[in-house]
């Protein structure tokens, strides 16, 4: 097949990508550099919209806080979701007969919309009617019956843990596939040489899982930075209570659609651009590091 035929086959997808992804992205990017009066574009504003994000209320307080929450979301998800995910995948790997069924079971919650998940957990954790606190009180753990979503100290972690609960099937599947790709001969050879189970995992299996761990980490990073639906379902667009479940995407949503500010399009586009640069930059840097690492192992 020559290049032109190749081009012919690529064109439809490319056109769709261009119209529905690239074009809106580039326009949003350009919007960030203009003055706006409602939907009417004014003159070129340079970096004014960007400096507003760092100098003007409410951004001066909301943006750093939202960013911190995104980072905590990433760290929390990495620590909890991906370690539990790897453990579960490892345990499932050895259960040949029930593996499929259990994998499906673990993946079940992510078939449900995050909005529904958030709403259901809000009901479960409600301090007035919620069964969770009723149950805790009944079994004598009254001091544990906290206002889970009403206290800034617990609200963010509830969001993170529910997200972990919803998405746990994802690392289980990816690690499961990666474990399936580790040649049995290598572990066997290690065991013949007298390595214990723990040693085999640490010295043989784990290093071969590094590419998968890398992929999962990058995807988790993107996922955590874009977090929107679940926090929105839990705390609304303002990150209730008192901004303790605020995220950058929520701040964007508030700025663009809730504030009613006349320059909303400019500042929100600037924020979107910033978020894109952050995600793209982070993901690109992480991938570059991982590639180098992979080359070292395969070399």
């Amino acid at each position, binding site marked *: 097949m020559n290049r*032109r035929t190749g081009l012919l086959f690529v*064109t439809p997808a490319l056109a769709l990508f261009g119209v529905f992804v690239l074009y809106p992205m580039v326009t949003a990017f350009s919007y960030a550099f203009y003055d706006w009066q*409602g939907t009417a574009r004014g003159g070129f504003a340079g970096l004014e919209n960007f400096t507003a994000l760092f100098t003007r209320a409410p951004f001066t307080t909301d943006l750093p806080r939202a960013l911190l929450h995104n980072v905590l979301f990433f760290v929390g998800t990495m620590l909890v979701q991906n370690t539990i995910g790897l453990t579960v995948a490892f345990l499932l790997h050895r259960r040949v007969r029930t593996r499929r069924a259990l994998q499906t079971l673990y993946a079940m919650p992510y078939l449900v919309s995050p909005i529904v998940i958030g709403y259901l957990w809000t009901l479960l*954790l409600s301090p*007035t*009617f919620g069964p969770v606190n009723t149950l805790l009180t009944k079994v004598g753990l009254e001091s544990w019956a906290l206002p889970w*979503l*009403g206290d800034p100290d617990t609200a963010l972690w509830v969001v993170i843990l529910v997200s972990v609960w919803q998405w746990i099937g994802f690392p289980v599947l990816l690690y499961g596939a990666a474990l399936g790709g580790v040649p049995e001969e290598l572990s066997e050879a290690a065991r013949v040489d007298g390595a214990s189970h723990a040693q085999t995992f640490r010295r043989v299996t784990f290093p071969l899982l590094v590419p998968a761990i890398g992929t999962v980490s990058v995807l988790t990073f993107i996922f955590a930075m874009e977090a929107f639906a679940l926090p929105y379902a839990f705390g609304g667009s303002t990150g209730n*209570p008192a901004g303790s479940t605020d995220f950058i995407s929520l701040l964007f949503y508030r700025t663009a659609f809730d504030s009613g500010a006349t320059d909303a399009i400019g500042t929100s586009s600037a924020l979107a651009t910033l978020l894109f640069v952050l995600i793209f930059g982070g993901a690109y840097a992480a991938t570059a590091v991982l590639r180098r690492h992979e080359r070292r192992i395969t070399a």
Partner: protein
Amino acid sequence: MTTRTSRSRIALALGAGVLALAACAPSSSSGGDDGDGTTLTVWSWRVEDKAAYDKIFDVYEKSHPGVTVDFKPFKATEYNKILATGLAGKDGPDVPQVRSYGQLQGTVAAGSLVPLDGKVDLSSWDENVVASAKGKEDGKIYSVPLARQATVLFYDKKMFSDNGVQVPTTWDQFIAANETFLKKGITPLAVGAKDDWTLPIVHEVLAGARFGGADFQEAVTSGAKDFTDPDFVASVEVLKQLEKYMPKSVTGVAVTDAMTLFTSGKAAMYPGGSYDLATLQKGNPEMEIGVMQVPPASGAPSGATGTTAGWADGNFAVNSKSPHQEEATELVTWMATPEFGQLVADEVKQISAVPGVTYSDPVLKQVADDYDKTGSPYLLLTDFRYGTPTGTDLLGKGAQELFLGSKDAKTVSTELNSGVMTWFEPTS
């Protein structure tokens, strides 16, 4: 050579086809001339009122032969986006329902609306209501207000009489009533502080009289006072004082939970807005709901009375790109008549913005009467949403911090003040 050319032509055609597809994908048609008549499209975020508006516009169509009004509601949470896109392009409605006060300004600034001065007469209307329809910059009227909303304290009439509690007329009686319910294991005040947007309303209901209602608005908008004023700080403190009468862990209670507490007979009073009435009635159709004004808390400025704070909502305007501006303006002019106002009261079951409308629902009637007698503007919405951060956002979050104990009333008021003063300019 020939095959190559034809191939690249196919590629080109394919590409162009996709582009053409994309270009005509998501659009909705606006009104057009069908034969000899004109179709006016009206956009709204009130999906639940579709049947009521269809009835209302039938009345208009009868008296205006040749005009068909097509009422098209969208999901409320998506509406701002849809309307902004519609007005920016050429597929917008002839008559859009628009937001009020500060939230109207973006649409006005974009030049999307036709000024209606000299076309509609709002001179006999409540000043606070008319302000909702104006552009802040030029002071022109850009819309016709539809409804008045008011903050109210709903109460369960049967629960009051069963427990021998009278509707309080002094602050001491109000506190005594709360104590009575608390002792009987009934939540006195159903508040859902998890939803920050409800808290400025709760503050208005419970403490509007403490800071002095309409008098305070005048002082603040003219620059004579600000939100660090001792009376305002004391009004925020009232929320903290009343916290013990609200559900436990109040910042974890959603407003829907608070409403359920009230409609299921677990709470005696619910501070909210007149727009909540329909939901409460649906929640428990058997319940006898009353409304009252909270008496001024101790220490209130002399002469302060209980007050019903109100604002206008759901205004209708004329799209400046509409091909039927004349017909659209005529429709909007009709929306300022008592005939339309009465239809809104009867069919949409809201307090009409048009003066002189009568109400068959006793609760709506009382709210309208209370507002006419001792009304005041819901200050943070009517005057402090013209910039970001908005007054309502700041007090909502601040009140949560107050309940959580992380900030005191003074800090909350100071932060509210410094937030809005970044953009607010007093009138004198």
